[in-house]
C-alpha cells in the first residue's frame, strides 16, 4: 500500500464508499447553486467564489467558503452539492499529504488532476441520481513547469483546461461572457493584470453574477460579507483579507452597481 501512496485506495480497502447513489426524493431540496471563477493574472491564479448556499428558493447559508485550499499550491473551488464537494476536498487534502509523506516527494500537478478526476468518476452514480453532482474548478501552481494552471470539470469527471479562465455554478453563464469580453477587448488581457486590478475584476464579476442569479450571493456590506478570494503564486496559496476586499469594493465596485 505504502508503495503506491494512494490514500483513496486505502480508504476503499477499509470499506469507505464515496457518493452512494440514492435517487433524490421528490420534494426534498438539495443545496446547490453558486458562482465560482478562476483566472490567470500577472502573478499566478486568482480563484473566487460567492458565499451563498441555496436549497430551492431558500437561502440555506450565507457564509459558505467554496474556495478551499487543498495544499500549499492548489485550490479547489466547489459548485454543486456541498456534502459531496466537501467530502471530496477532505479526501484530496489527505491524499496529497499522504502521497508526500509516504513517497517522500510531492505529487505532480498532473497526479493531482488525475486524483480529482478519479473522485468525480467514482461519484458518477450519485451525480446522475441527483444527490451528489459536483462541478469543481481546480487551480494551482505547477512547481515543475513553473506556471499557474486552471482546470474545470463536468459532473462526470471530464477534465478541461481553462487556458485563461474558468467558471462554474448557476451564475457562471452571466460572467462567462464578461470574462471573454474583458480578456479580448480590454486594454490589458486578464493574465497581465497586477494583483489589485485583478481583485477588482473578481469582485465586479461576482457582483454581476449575483445581480442575475438568485442562487449567487452578492456582497452584504451590513453583515460585512465579502466573497472568498484566494491567490496562488509561486509562494503558495494566500487568502485575500476581508479588509482589503472591503476597501476595494467601496472604492472600485460600489459606484458601478
Amino acid at each position, binding site marked *: 500500500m505504502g508503495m503506491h501512496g494512494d490514500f483513496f485506495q486505502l480508504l476503499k480497502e477499509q470499506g469507505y464508499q464515496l457518493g452512494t447513489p440514492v435517487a433524490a426524493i421528490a420534494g426534498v431540496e438539495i443545496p446547490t447553486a453558486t458562482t465560482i471563477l478562476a483566472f490567470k493574472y500577472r502573478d499566478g491564479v486568482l480563484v473566487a467564489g460567492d458565499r451563498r448556499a441555496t436549497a430551492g428558493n431558500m437561502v440555506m447559508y450565507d457564509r459558505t467558503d467554496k474556495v478551499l485550499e487543498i495544499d500549499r499550491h492548489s485550490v479547489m473551488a466547489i459548485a454543486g452539492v456541498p456534502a459531496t464537494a466537501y467530502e471530496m476536498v477532505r479526501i484530496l487534502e489527505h491524499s496529497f499529504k499522504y502521497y508526500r509523506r509516504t513517497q*517522500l516527494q510531492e505529487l505532480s500537478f498532473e497526479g493531482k488532476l488525475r486524483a480529482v478526476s478519479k473522485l468525480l468518476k467514482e461519484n458518477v452514480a450519485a451525480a446522475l441520481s441527483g444527490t451528489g453532482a459536483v462541478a469543481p474548478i481546480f487551480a494551482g501552481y505547477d512547481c515543475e513547469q513553473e506556471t499557474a494552471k486552471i482546470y474545470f470539470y463536468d459532473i462526470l469527471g471530464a477534465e478541461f483546461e481553462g487556458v485563461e479562465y474558468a467558471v462554474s455554478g448557476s451564475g457562471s453563464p452571466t460572467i462567462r461572457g464578461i470574462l471573454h469580453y474583458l480578456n479580448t477587448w480590454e486594454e490589458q488581457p486578464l493574465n497581465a493584470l497586477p494583483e489589485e486590478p485583478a481583485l477588482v475584476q473578481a469582485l465586479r464579476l461576482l457582483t454581476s453574477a449575483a445581480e442575475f442569479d438568485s442562487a449567487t450571493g452578492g456582497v452584504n456590506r451590513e453583515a460585512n460579507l465579502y466573497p472568498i478570494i484566494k491567490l496562488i503564486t509561486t509562494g503558495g496559496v494566500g487568502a485575500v483579507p476581508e479588509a482589503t476586499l472591503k476597501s476595494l469594493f467601496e472604492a472600485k465596485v460600489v459606484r458601478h452597481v
Partner: protein
Amino acid sequence: MYEEPYKWVEAIDNRRQYLDDQFKQGSPVVALAYDTGILLLSVSKSTSKFYEIYDRLALGGMGHPADLEKLRVNLLEMAHVEGFNRSPSDVTGSRMVKYGIAPVIKQAFEEVFKAPFIVKLLLAELGHKAGKDSFLVVNYDGTFEEGTSCTVLAASKTVEQEMIASIRGKVSAVLSLEQAFDLALRTWALGDRLQHKTVEEPSGESSSGQPEDTEATSLSAYLRDRVAEKTIECVLLDRNRSDSSKYRALPSDEIGRLLPKDLTPLIL
C-alpha cells in the same frame, strides 16, 4: 522446542542479545523542545533517519531501514485514516504508539519463530502551545516511555540515560533554535562517543568525571572527527509554520548557518 517455558525465556534472552548487538553501530537520535517547536537531530552516512508522519508528528528511528520503513508506512496509514475519519486533532502520538505500533512490535519480538523488528523508534508530537509537546520512544520489544521536553535513542539504555542526564537540566521552552541545535549536536556526540567506547573498550571510564571545559573541548574534537565524512540531519516541528503541516527538514545551508562557531569549517 519452545513449548517448554524456560526454553522460550531462553530464546527471548538470545533475541535480546542479538538485537542489542544490532544497534551497537547505530547512530543516536536526539529530540528536544525549543522556543517555537521541536528539533530532531542525528548524524548519518546516507539513509534518512527522520520522517513526517502527520501534521504535528515526526518519526525518528535507529535500526534496519527495511523494518523502519514497514513501521513508518504502518504509522502513516493509521494516522491518515484516523485523521480523515475523525479529525487531525485526534491523531496523537500516544494513541499511535499505545494502540498502534507498540503491540505490533511486541508481538514480533515474542514470536520466536519469526524475525523481530530491528528497530527503535522515537515519535515527537508538537503541542498547540509551548510546554505541551510530547515525546515517545518505543524499544525493539514494544516497551515504550513518554516524556515532555526531550528524549533520545541510542544503542543501550545506559548510553540513553547518560545522554538524557546531560541535557535534562538544559532543555527549556526558551531555548532558541541555535541553542537547541548546539545542545542536540553535542548530546549526539556524547552518545556516539559512549557507544564507541563501550564497543572498543568495554571497561573504559565514563567521561562524566572530567572537568566541564575539558569535556566540552574533547567533545568538540570528537565531533570534528566523527562528522567530517557524515551528514548532519535535522528536522523541525515548527509551531510558527502557517501551514497545517508543521514538519520541516532543514536544508544543508541552514544547518551550516546553525553550526556552532567552533565547528563551522566542519561541513562547509
